[in-house]
């Protein structure tokens, strides 16, 4: 029982991180109908910047943890949003009218570029930071197994819930959200109503990058280690989460993230940690066989 609750908490935390990255995937997919393969690497860049900023803040003697994390978030979101904007500008916008394969490939190129850039400039070694928020609550002990809820886990889960709420509101209720949904459904018509479609797409990439930035900061604080290659696996997992939940749907991305986090955590604990990825992708295949548009995705019905 203790073990089960503990894995539930771990899975939720992991799932929240996947969910945050998946939100960015799904927003970008929604608006241009293409997967941003550089998204995972944007998350990696965010984590690396977070290490830099946290180390710098430590050197400056800013030791209040909430303050340090808030400053880090602000700085990382700022720089990562610029990365997101640049990716769109370099890899997508010049190919707006090209075949769908071209931007896909340029995005993969972008991903390789970002990884190598970080490896060259930051080195290939794992970057550690000292534990920022050690400790947590000991919830209860059952059969000699004590269940812990770390402060970092509380932070990750609550930040994720807040961001999901803010983004759902942004998309469904605000003028920007309506503009974005309009671009999703018909870019040409949206432009003819006087809306700057290119700018809307840029903002969406920046918002997606900002979400990846938050995930990057959270992971840095949670695990304390970061290197140049974390983007690939996280990106693939988050992509799987987005597809599992129904790509294009914000709650779907979060749900997909949580499911994948849970599967990984339970599979590692009860079965074998080596095969946790197999389990994750196995579930993806199963879900897609029975619900091709994902759990919360809207099936595409073509009217004839």
């Amino acid at each position: 029982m203790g073990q089960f609750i503990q894995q539930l908490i771990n899975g939720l935390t992991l799932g929240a991180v996947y969910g945050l990255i998946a939100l960015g995937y799904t927003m970008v997919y929604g608006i241009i109908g293409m997967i941003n393969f550089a998204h995972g690497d944007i998350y990696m860049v965010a984590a690396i910047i977070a290490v830099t900023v946290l180390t710098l803040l430590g050197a400056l003697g800013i030791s209040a943890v909430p303050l340090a994390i808030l400053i880090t978030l602000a700085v990382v979101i700022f720089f990562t949003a610029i990365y997101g904007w640049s990716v769109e500008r370099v890899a997508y916008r010049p190919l707006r009218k090209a075949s769908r394969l071209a931007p896909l490939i340029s995005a993969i190129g972008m991903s390789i570029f970002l990884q190598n850039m970080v490896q060259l400039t930051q080195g290939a070694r794992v970057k550690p930071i000292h534990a920022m928020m050690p400790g947590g609550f000991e919830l209860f002990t059952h059969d000699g197994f004590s269940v812990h809820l770390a402060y970092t886990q509380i932070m990750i889960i609550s930040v994720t819930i807040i961001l999901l709420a803010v983004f759902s509101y942004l998309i469904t209720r605000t003028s920007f959200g309506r503009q974005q949904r309009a671009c999703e459904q018909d870019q040409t018509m949206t432009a003819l109503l006087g809306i700057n479609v290119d700018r809307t797409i840029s903002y969406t990439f920046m918002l997606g990058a900002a979400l990846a930035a938050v995930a990057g900061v959270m992971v840095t604080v949670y695990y304390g280690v970061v290197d140049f290659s974390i983007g690939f696996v996280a990106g693939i997992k988050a992509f799987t989460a987005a597809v599992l939940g129904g790509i294009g749907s914000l709650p779907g991305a979060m749900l997909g993230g949580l499911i994948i986090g849970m599967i990984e955590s339970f599979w590692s604990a009860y079965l074998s940690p080596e095969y946790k990825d197999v389990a994750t992708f196995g579930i993806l295949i199963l879900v897609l066989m029975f619900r091709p548009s994902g759990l919360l995705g809207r099936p595409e019905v073509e009217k004839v």
Partner: protein
Amino acid sequence: MSNTLTPAANQGGKLLLEVEHLTMRFGGLTALNDLSLAVPAGKITSIIGPNGAGKTTFFNCLTGFYKPTTGNVRMHHPQYGPLLLNQMPSYHVARKAGVVRTFQNIRLFPNMTVLENLIVAQHNALQRASRFSIAGLFGQAGYKSAREAALAKALMWLTRLKLLDIADTAAGNLSYGTQRRIEIARALCVDPLLLCLDEPAAGLNPRESAELNELLLYLSREHNKGVLLIEHDMNVVMRVSDHICVLNFGNKIAEGNPAQIQNDPDVIKAYLGEDETDQEAA
């Protein structure tokens, strides 16, 4: 005003759109050949012609879809002065020049409600007031009044076009005739100076089509909108048009008021073919 301008400019309405020697070629195909046309405010100008005559190509040149091979499309904006539409990005054509079009095949946002479709069209005003959604998140007063104004405008057109009772239905689920009306209502929410309608009567039943006639006259007479109409339904064209321009294979073959067009031998030839005209003459 050059001497290539047509009688439309002299019909009384203030000149709104001036098309000068517009030519559009796709490879070897000339879709539009040296078309000149003047469209005044407060009048209905129709473009007719057989299929493939270049009517929709003309609209595509107006709204920044195609960049014309040669020639200019100039919008005389009461505020900004003359604007060259063919050098503007698509979104400026609506935002700045005040030219909005509808499509032959309806292009609503099918997953949004009818009301949302109309609010999206007022995006620019809202976005300015909301400081790019940031103030909107905090419910600032300026945004609130802008939102209420947008809602009021949407409701006005919904009421005028008898769409009020379906305002909260997803647009994609509605009937064809209704979707056409929504598309016109959405275009009106942009506050256009010039409304370009591509076959708005296609697929409408006779009652709907009569209502459309009435609406077009109301918009041009009461709201002083310039209306540019592509239409095959002669019941609509002949009843509402102040001025008609006939295209055939990209060339303007005739121009004038409905009575002149109905009796123009070139037009009859283009529509009915050479032989029939001979028989008719016989």
